[in-house]
């Protein structure tokens, strides 16, 4: 049995003066140095003894001095790395243009934790249960990453490689995430199933996004992202394009989501139950999005 340490193991707290210094330090100590943001996952994992080799915790919060959310009507939304979840939830621009993101951020843990937890941290932690991964993926998020070679853009597509594993290399620090403007008329919905009402991890999480599309037979296009049913988020794109939208068509799309995932049995739930829930929650989420599209309101 894993023995939790009564306190934290020994480590040095490193607060670099610049992004360059931070990237260099992290690259020079690839095994022993870890970057951290809010620390809500980092400190728990350290205490639990997951990272035996960690010697340095490198505080990379707000090294570029831009702990802010900005919205540009042409380029979309940018969320800085030091922005916490509660700020995402409350931000008027997020709520106006990306309400799905606010909804997903609101389902992360508890209010107290959301004052520390960050959107970027949630992405870089790469938990298969991460609540915001689906929304960020479906909105086509692009991370701004600072590495030893300087800045680069890192699209979220292909970013997640396994539980806790991402495309980031030693020295890489995600400084912000940008979301292009959503397709006009987009409606999203996040369905999360926890074991109890508040603050659980997702046993199954379904993110749905739909928008009008005059090029399809249905006049719409839908996308799904599934959490906690595979090592990385399961994405189903371009659903419900072929035929007019009916309840049966939505049921069928939900069935496809069920077929597309391969969950495991674990302490939180069985594979059998998770598959049923992927179908039922996908159906629920797709219907909510459809209702939103019909009413012409972005729904939450």
């Amino acid at each position, binding site marked *: *049995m894993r*023995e*939790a*340490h*009564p*306190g934290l193991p*020994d480590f040095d707290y490193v607060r670099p003066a610049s992004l360059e210094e931070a990237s260099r330090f992290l690259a020079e100590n690839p095994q022993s140095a870890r970057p951290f943001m809010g620390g809500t996952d980092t400190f728990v994992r350290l205490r639990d003894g997951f990272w035996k080799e960690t010697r340095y915790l490198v505080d990379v919060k707000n090294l570029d001095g831009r702990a802010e959310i900005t919205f540009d009507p042409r380029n979309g939304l940018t969320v800085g790395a030091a922005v916490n979840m509660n700020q995402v939830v409350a931000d008027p621009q997020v709520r106006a243009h990306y309400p799905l993101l606010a909804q997903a951020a609101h389902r992360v843990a508890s209010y107290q934790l959301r004052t520390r937890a960050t959107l970027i941290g949630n992405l870089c932690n790469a938990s298969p249960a991460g609540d915001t991964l689906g929304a960020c993926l479906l909105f086509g998020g692009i991370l701004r990453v600072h590495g030893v070679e300087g800045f680069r853009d890192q699209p979220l597509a292909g970013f997640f490689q396994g539980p806790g594993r991402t495309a980031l290399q030693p020295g890489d620090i995600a400084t912000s995430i940008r979301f292009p403007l959503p397709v006009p008329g987009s409606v999203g919905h996040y369905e999360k*199933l926890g*074991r*109890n*009402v*508040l*603050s*659980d*991890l997702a*046993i199954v999480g379904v993110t749905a996004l739909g928008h009008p599309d005059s090029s399809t037979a249905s006049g719409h296009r839908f996308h799904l992202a599934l959490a906690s049913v595979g090592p990385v988020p399961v994405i189903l794109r371009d659903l419900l394009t072929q035929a007019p939208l009916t309840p049966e068509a939505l049921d069928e799309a939900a069935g496809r989501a069920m077929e597309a995932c391969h969950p495991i049995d674990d*302490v*939180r*739930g*069985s594979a*059998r*139950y998770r598959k*049923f*829930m992927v179908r*039922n*929650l996908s*159906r*629920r989420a797709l219907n909510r999005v459809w209702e939103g599209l019909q009413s012409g309101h972005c729904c939450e």
Partner: protein
Amino acid sequence: MDTVETTTPRPHQESAAPRPVGESVTRLDAHEKVTGEALFADDLQFGPNMLYARIKRSPHPHARILKIDASRALALPGVKTVVTGQSTPGFIGLYLKDRHIFCTDRARFVGDPVAGVAATTEEIAEKALDLIDVEYEVLPPVLDPEEGVRPDAELLHPELGSYEVANFIFPQPGTNIPNLFKIRKGDVDKALSEAAAVVHHSFRVPHVQHVPIEPHVAIAKVDERGRVTLWGSSQSPFAQRNLIASALGISQADLEVVAPYVGGGFGCKAGVSMEALAVAIAMQVRGRPVKLRLTREEEFYTTFVRQGLVAHFTMACDAEGNLTAMDNKFFWDGGAYAEYGVNMTRGAGYSSSGPYDVPNVRTDSYCVYTNHPVGGPMRGFGQPEMQCGLEQCINRLALEIGMDPMEFRRRNCVKEGSNLVTGMKMHATGIGECLEKAAEAIGWGHKDPPSAPHKRRGKGIAAMWKAPAMSPNAGSSAWIEMSEDGKCTLGLGGQEIGQGTFTVMAQMAAAALGIPYDWVRIASPVDTKYSPYEWQTVASRLTWSMGNAVVAATKDARRQILELVARSWEETPEDLDIVNGNVISAKSGRSSSLKGLVVYGLARPGDQGWIGGPILGRGSFMPTYVTGLDPETGQGERAVVHYTTGAQAIEIEVDLETGRVEVLRGASAFDMGKAINPDLVRVQMEGGLVQGISTALFESLQLQDGVVRNPSFVDYRIATSADAPRDMQSIIVEVPQDDGPFGARGVGEHSMVPTMPAIANAIHDALGIHPGAPPFTAEKVYLAMVDAGLVK
């Protein structure tokens, strides 16, 4: 809120009792707890001399310990001592001494303490654990109580026959059974053969944990002469004094236990668990305080857990719906040591009819050693687990013969004079009224439409009873000392664990003496050196037992005061009274403040000396009327002091798409004889309901090969306020108890006893599916619906 019942203080009606008994006065500890001023064990400061302890634990569920080499740990700078079982050869245990403080030759569960380290910091102590080398020979584990009773099962305690044991516990030497309690009443086989309906069902209730907000903490210091002081978060300072002193071979008078406020206990801080470890380590580093704190993870598997239970019920009734027979077999998963758990086996046995009048009962209640965490007391002491299955069977039997489950219960429930399962005669009880009021509160008999098309609603009810399960002669004592201005300090040994006992004791003392409530202070923290003896803060027994002692002490002080004043006034004490802090005479109309006279006495007229002296009241209480039970039949004159009864009615809604059960309404009605403080009683009812909901819907220690797979709040989910029903009603029923102060009996544990079966019965009402054993998680309910063809 749909209800104001529990949130708005209301004047309590009907009050023959003197003020402030029956009033919802403000808690004595409210101010210091709200401001953060109140001290808990971890807040106490011991200076730079203090050492920190950590415990090396067995990673194996069952193993022989071949060798322990601590030399590398001892060489680590900062390590002051390493203690193993060699230093603690004595046995410890409340009802059955089957446990060493540290393992000697054998480890019996994952987490069993093998060695203890004291070091200058907690970090060094933790590091030292990795430097202790332990060689084990792994033994086959027993992981199921029904397997454990088989003749060929691996024996956990081959020495069982030689253990010291209380005379009402019956170990079976040469087996894994530390207690077997039997009931043989009437002719069960005949009754079953003649019955109109018979049901037979089995239930497997999982282990759960108490999860108090404050983990266990203990600080021990041993002086140069070997005298011990132990500070800790404890429900049982006096039991700890006794058990630890006996195990270490020292006098109880040389062990002082200081017990500040407890941040939640629910039973896990009763008896002795980790506290003895701190003392044993401190023995080796005399003069230095040694502090041991458990991590939250350790809390889940190294201290007491609520035992698992495998229960088989057969019950029968006649065509009119009269219960005729019950045939029960219980296999309690007692864990590695059953020193406390053996008595739950007994309690389940002598209450095994449930709160019903059943002429023919056969029960075998086995406590079984397994290589699981140690089973100990938890709120309800076995009754929630046992009555979980029993009350589902009652429901099924009622439905089987086509009778309303509530009507069936009312018809069969115990009444004054009923011949109970042990042969004891039932005292006056309000269970029928509890059933009716709980049912009425949720609109029993009406089915409301669900809130959405994909939901189904259901209602369920369950009754309960529970007696204080304790040593028959568990005693209480109290003193009351007056100060110069007439205010007083009440000495007692029961613990304030959040339930409000200090407040209730102050109310009773104020009422019995005739002074205002805010004149009473409690001599706290409880300290075995200065506080009067109290057996333990368990069994919902304080209001009743300690209350009797407090009333006796207060009456003793009152008698001294009245005799003094009567002498001075040349009247008789019978003509005098104390009202609102003044002695008054009904005969002469004279009146005098208590001020001065309660300490300095009164001057004789004409400067002729003084009479009286400092007033010090003392009182004690011990039930002397509980008799033994026959080991073969479980029959005897008076098995217990009394039973508290009650009922809960629950309305739920099930989401057909997820299986999630939402509790919409929960009504609790309990008969506590007399509500000394109605608000505190309601809070107990609410808390018990929510904890009951938590165990019904979420909680389970997931044990695999003896390892707890979910030892943290990440994966051991408990109900939060968001899971509690918006509509909670707490109904007070008062049928006075003849041996209780002001007619009161306990109600702390009872409100979580009927919750699991009430919810199970509501699920059946909603879906037609019997969910069986808890927890009724969304997954369990959904897959049951799939298997029943209710959903696809």
